């Protein structure tokens, strides 16, 4: 989870590094810590450090971590020659290392040689059958080859063993959403909310999936989760505010002509409160679009 303070620091370091100021090593460390995907910049600036033998030796033992980071960034940018060179250097230093073995298999994946990569991963799995990273790479390979059903199968088997892996649950939810299997995606998001209940992004994603499935109970549940997102973010999530307004109007439409109890679920105060909050935020941040917003909200209230 990247916080706002970390994001501003990252952007600041990025500007500094791009405009020729120093701080390249801190930028690379921050990218590694936050696990963001900035492959081009990492490749460019990482190579600028590695090409210079003086800067390289001043890093000490962190030099090898940098080689690994640059190798992965090079594979992401399809500079396979650079990746090959980095891996060769690492192989010379650590000859029988599993970590370097994983990088070699990753390089085979990047080249598109799926069977060789598959074989390499199986060999690595024989030594250590419970290696999480290798199992996840198998899923990624299935995804890259365009076989989402096989990816789902592998990921389900992986999650039976390693149930606490949030990234895997998130990945599974995203694959399900891309295949439009929303009920299963909702289940994955429920697991994520159970494990990390204070992260508003999961509540928001769950509410959106429920809203997409539709139907009276799902819309009511979606509205509850949009409300909990607003609670967790202190009212700053514009998307959740919009979600409440849309849920309210969808529920009102569904319960037209039904009996009194269903009409009670409409919760008009919540909708009007959300609308007021939205208008206040738009007045502050985008006053030019305020008229558009007001007319849209008015048409929702029908």
């Amino acid at each position, binding site marked *: 989870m*990247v916080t706002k303070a970390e*994001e501003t620091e990252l952007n600041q370091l990025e500007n500094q590094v791009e405009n020729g100021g120093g701080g390249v090593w801190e930028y690379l460390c921050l990218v590694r810590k936050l696990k963001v995907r900035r492959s081009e910049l990492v490749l460019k600036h990482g190579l600028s450090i590695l090409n210079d033998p003086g800067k390289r030796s001043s890093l000490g033992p962190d030099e090898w971590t940098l080689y690994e980071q640059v190798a992965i960034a090079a594979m992401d940018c399809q500079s396979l020659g650079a990746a090959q*060179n980095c891996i060769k250097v690492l192989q010379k230093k650590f000859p029988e290392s599993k970590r370097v073995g994983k990088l070699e298999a990753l390089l085979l994946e990047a080249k598109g040689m799926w069977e060789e990569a598959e074989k390499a991963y199986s060999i690595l799995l024989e030594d250590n059958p419970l290696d999480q990273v290798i199992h996840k790479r198998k899923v990624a390979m299935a995804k890259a080859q365009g076989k989402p059903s096989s990816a789902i199968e592998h990921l389900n088997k992986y999650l039976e063993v390693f149930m606490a892996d949030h990234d895997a649950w998130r990945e599974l939810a995203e694959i399900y959403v891309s295949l439009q299997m929303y009920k299963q995606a909702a289940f994955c998001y429920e697991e994520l909310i159970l494990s990390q209940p204070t992260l508003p992004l999961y509540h928001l994603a769950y509410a959106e999936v429920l809203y997409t499935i539709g139907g009276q109970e799902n819309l009511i549940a979606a509205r509850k989760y949009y409300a909990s997102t607003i609670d967790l973010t202190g009212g700053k999530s514009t998307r959740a505010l919009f979600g409440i307004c849309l849920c309210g109007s969808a529920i009102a439409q569904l319960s037209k002509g039904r009996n009194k109890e269903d009409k009670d679920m409409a919760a008009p105060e919540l909708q009007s409160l959300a609308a007021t909050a939205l208008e206040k935020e738009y007045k502050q941040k985008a006053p030019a679009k305020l008229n558009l917003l007001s007319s849209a909200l008015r048409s929702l209230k029908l």
Partner: protein
Amino acid sequence: MNLGFVIGVIGVLILSHAGYSTIQYRGLLKITEEEFTGPPLNVVLELIVGLALSMWAALTFPGKFLSIHPDSDENRAVSLPDNSDFMIFNHRGRLFPPEITMKF
């Protein structure tokens, strides 16, 4: 050494002096065989002064306090980390490899 640190040191010294006075007072009471009902008034005053100084120093010396609200402006979650364990290299960016120079 800034003011907070100095005041903190003075506060701790006053507290330890109050403790030492109380121990001496108890020794005196053992000689006259009376019961220890509480430290004398001047020691209590010293304790209050020491408490005030130490608390002020403890709040000002460490510097800026970090926010603990999860929805404050620094702490709010902006994005989740990009799942690099499941990263695939099969994207459209592979048609545009950057120009790089390698010297090793």
